[in-house]
């Protein structure tokens, strides 16, 4: 964390619209190394559009995105992933006919530089050990040999995040890591994710709807409303903002 003056991620003046719908306007966000930044906002506020622009799925109409000072605007998702931005998905994106371990091996093989080992056994070259280690971190090692199609939703969610860590990304984006988890299980689930992630990735941007989770885990919060950033600061500051209360958190905060 210390000694790094340049932000890991620097997005400036991002704009994106779909026809008449403005999904992003003048979005400027800098994420310093080691920060856990939470994005909040109601559905359609522009959180996922931001995540999609940063990971290359969408190209912004205007603005620039830099990773460690290098411009990555408009690059393909795979190129951006190679540069160190990895993401998990709100709906887990897995290969359901493969086992949990095979999914991990795919992620690990994808993270390695292409070489002869790509033509060797998937488990070779320490890939199996790394796969087990990551599955273990998320407490899903017992399910390693099961096809994903037989795994419960919560475990798929964890596997999805574990795969995003295979590369030890510079920046990890988690799209609603606790969605689909019941209210009383949200804290244990988030604890598990944060514990598992520690040491693998330190700079994290996550999207979350539960304000208690936001308060508990974020260093900083950014609130979106119709494509714009309406508040940016500490959790206490943002969650007590009148506009945020009206448009995002409702009466809950």
């Amino acid at each position, binding site marked *: 964390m210390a000694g790094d003056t340049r932000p890991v991620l620097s997005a400036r003046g991002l704009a994106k619209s779909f026809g008449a719908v403005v999904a992003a306007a003048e979005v400027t966000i800098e994420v310093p190394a080691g920060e856990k930044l939470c994005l909040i906002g109601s559905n359609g506020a522009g959180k996922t559009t931001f995540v999609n622009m940063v990971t290359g799925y969408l190209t912004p109409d205007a603005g620039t995105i830099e990773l460690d000072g290098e411009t990555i605007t408009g690059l393909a*998702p*795979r190129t951006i*992933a*190679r540069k160190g931005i990895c993401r998990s998905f709100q709906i887990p994106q897995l290969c359901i006919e493969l086992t949990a371990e095979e*999914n991990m091996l*795919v992620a690990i093989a994808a993270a390695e530089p292409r070489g002869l080992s*790509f033509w060797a056994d*998937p488990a070779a070259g320490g890939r199996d050990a790394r796969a087990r280690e990551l599955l273990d971190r998320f407490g899903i090692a017992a399910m390693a040999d099961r*096809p994903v199609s037989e795994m419960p939703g919560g475990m798929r969610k964890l596997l999805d995040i574990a795969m995003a860590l295979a*590369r030890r990304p510079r920046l990890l984006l988690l799209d609603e890591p606790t969605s689909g988890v019941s209210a009383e299980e949200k804290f244990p689930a988030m604890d598990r994710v944060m514990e598992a992630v520690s040491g693998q990735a330190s700079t994290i941007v996550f999207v979350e709807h539960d304000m208690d989770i936001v308060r508990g885990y974020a260093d900083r919060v950014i609130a979106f409303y119709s494509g714009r950033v309406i508040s940016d600061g500490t959790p206490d500051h943002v969650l007590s903002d009148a506009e945020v209360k009206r448009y995002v958190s409702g009466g809950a905060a």
Partner: protein
Amino acid sequence: MSRTVLVLVAAGLMAALLLIGLALPRWLLFLVTLAASHGIVSVGILVIMRGGLVSFGQGLVFAIGGYAAALSFTQLGITDVIVLILIGTAAAALVGAAVGPLLARYTGIFFGMLTLALSMVAYGVLIKSPAVGGSDGFNIPRGTLFGVRLEGAGGDYALYALAILVTGIAATAVALHTRSARGLMTRAIHGNGLRVEYLGTSVQSVMAINFTIAAALGGLGGALTIVALGHIEPTFAFWTQSGEFVFVAILAGSHSVTAVFIASLALELVRSFSNLYFPNTWQMALGLFLLAIILFLPAGIGSLWAGRRKASPSSGGETP
């Protein structure tokens, strides 16, 4: 099945087939030689199919391998069948490497139709090319192996043995590839290509290389076929020929390369017997055969012994 066991089983299978060949009548030796030569083309389709795409144009690479080998014989005077097979394989692989990256940009039916279109363009060009015999094609005399001319019963057996060894080794390589990180990545692309891209791998480049591998196998099959058949014509690139390769791949299912050769042999047997006993309706016999497979073995012949992972969670992978 571990990789060592796989190689040992494959070697044992090839040795057994070489021995059995000594007892087979000449017509059956020829039939098995053709089935192996055609089967390896369908093994190539399997390499693509595992990534979720089907090529309806493998006739293209089959014809390129065949013509490259045949022309090397008649124009350049190269008679050694092993060299001819290498030339056919290399020529088709080169074409595959050239068109693969273009084709790999497409998925689903677009990919299938483009491969079909390319093969039909090749067919059209070949049929209008008097230099290579036009629609009649041309004949190729029997080649040589280590300086010995392949004639008579001995020559037939030598070609049979060559076909078993060459296609056997190539198929074993494909089975090993299936168990590699690349092979796993190919299956992952079939399962969720978008996620693979997000993990940092180019789906297009993996599929382009898979197409090149399939092209090399197609060229290998084409060269082996003309060496055994002694004849080549533009129908090698015709869509019905490509369709037959897909037919065999579907018949076999994507679980096992061994099943592809069984399916290929079954096709050759059904074809020759139906031709003999009901020459005008042999396609119908083939249709009924495929219908029976689809009804009773929807995952292909290979599912009889491979790909039953759900029943036995301890097993480590597919069998060859």
